[in-house]
């Protein structure tokens, strides 16, 4: 086993590390799903993973392509209806962590997955919010994972699909939101956390081999670094082995489902 790893693997591993075995986690599809299942298969075996299709405490052996693949239901403790999922479990305040991704994010952790350009005359029509607007407001805290680029990490969002910290500290409280909002962002280059004073996301650790300049160049706003910035510990051999096996099983399974 070589210690070499890709930026994408580093992102998934560092995102997985943010989760605890005691978490009840509402899982977004894509990058969050890989991170959440890697956590479950490594350091957080008792984590409760919930997908919006209604599956509670699911333990899939491969990553689902959709949020409603049959394996999520077959390996779940129980499966509830979608209204029950959103009313009792999410709105009911039972979820400790919501794990989201998006097409675009701003410095305050607000997300856009709706549209690029004007809503009525879009340049690019994106899928929309799905569960995210209420995941972002009802979970006790939000983790965000997505790859950094100038197109994705933008100065100003054309559309706010999911609310993070608005325009800064105090905006959530002003709306009557009692949850913490986005507390950590795991990217392919670095980990960011909100500055406690301003709620602007700042770099708290750079991944091995990533320079400050490289992180700044991939960000559409003037990226700031925490004075206490560190280097992210690289993926362990065990983390890489489990992740690669999971992805190999997944690719094989989906290719066979024609």
């Amino acid at each position, binding site marked *: 086993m070589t210690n070499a790893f890709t930026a994408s693997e580093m992102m998934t591993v560092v995102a997985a590390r943010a989760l605890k075995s005691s978490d009840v986690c509402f899982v977004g599809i894509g990058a969050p799903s890989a991170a959440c299942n890697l956590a479950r298969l490594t350091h957080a075996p008792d984590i409760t993973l919930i997908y919006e*299709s209604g599956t509670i405490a699911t333990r899939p052996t491969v990553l689902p392509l959709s949020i*409603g693949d049959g394996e999520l239901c077959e390996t779940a403790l129980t499966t509830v209806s979608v*209204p029950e*999922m959103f009313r009792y479990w999410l709105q009911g305040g039972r979820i400790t962590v919501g794990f989201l991704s998006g097409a675009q994010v701003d410095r305050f952790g607000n997300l856009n997955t709706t549209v690029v350009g004007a809503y009525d005359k879009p340049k690019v029509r994106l899928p*929309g*919010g799905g*569960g995210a607007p209420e995941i972002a407001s009802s979970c006790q805290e939000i983790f965000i994972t997505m790859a950094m680029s100038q197109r994705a990490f933008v100065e100003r969002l054309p559309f*706010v699909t999911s609310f993070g910290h608005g325009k800064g500290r105090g905006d959530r409280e002003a709306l009557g939101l009692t949850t913490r909002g986005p507390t950590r962002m795991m990217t392919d280059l670095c980990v960011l956390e909100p500055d406690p004073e301003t709620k602007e996301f700042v770099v708290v650790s750079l991944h091995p081999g990533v320079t400050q300049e490289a992180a700044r160049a991939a960000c559409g706003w003037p990226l700031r670094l925490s004075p206490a910035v560190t280097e992210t510990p690289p993926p362990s051999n065990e983390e890489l082995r489990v992740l690669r096996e999971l992805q190999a099983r997944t690719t094989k*399974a989906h290719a*066979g489902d024609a």
Partner: protein
Amino acid sequence: MTQFCSLEDAIARNVHDGDTVAMEGFTHLIPYAAGHEVIRQRRKHLTLVRMTPDLIYDQLIGMGAADRLVFSWGGNPGVGSLHRLRDAVENGWPQPLALEEHSHAAMANAYEAGAANLPFAVFRGYKGVDLPNVNPQIRTVECPFTGEALAAVPAIRPDVAIIHAQRADRAGNVLLDGIVGVQKQAVLAAKRAVVTVEEQVDDLAAPGYNAVILPAWTISAIAVVPGGAYPSYAQGYYKRANGFYIAWDDIARDRAKFQEWMTENVLKQGPEAFLAHRRAVA
């Protein structure tokens, strides 16, 4: 017993031009065969309601069946865009499509309000986001007890709900099992309900005392269409065809390729085309 009929008759009797139609199934049990029948019967000016339009509404929209879409997440799950939906919204092809866009929480609540015969749904949502600025159907009500501002959306009351289920017994009672989504709510919220099932059985063999069963008298018409959820799936019968969802990206990206696929696989076919996907008989 009279409610069992062919899929062609079920759609002809229950889906009319201009209707508000909700074909539900949250990734699981999506009524593809019924959607194809609606396309074959050339229904027009529909308002299509569905939390996740999925490939089925991509197909209906691309074939010009819809004037309006009520939805909350319009992508190809795990793959990317719904290209026909995008082409309609971005370029008005084959015709313009009006959008009424919500979040999942809003639509789930709105279906439940419809089933409960309430005029609107109330929930905690849409705080700080832009959707209420572009959708006038999203409003706010004040809690009469605490003064809290809560989100309100109108109840969903479709003219017809269309769902797929695992099985129906001889009397027409229908069982759903697995990821059950919002189908029970959609059926009970609608004026009429059309159900396709994998099979008709003597005994529903419900998996427990609290199984999701829709009594026969809540359903307008049932058609037996084995494999009728493909490329979605029917838990216990066949798996989701993830490979087809991936392949659809390429088919739907190009207008001519899409039309050719629809002609060969929908317009020139009937419900029996789905037989190939049903559970392999032991």
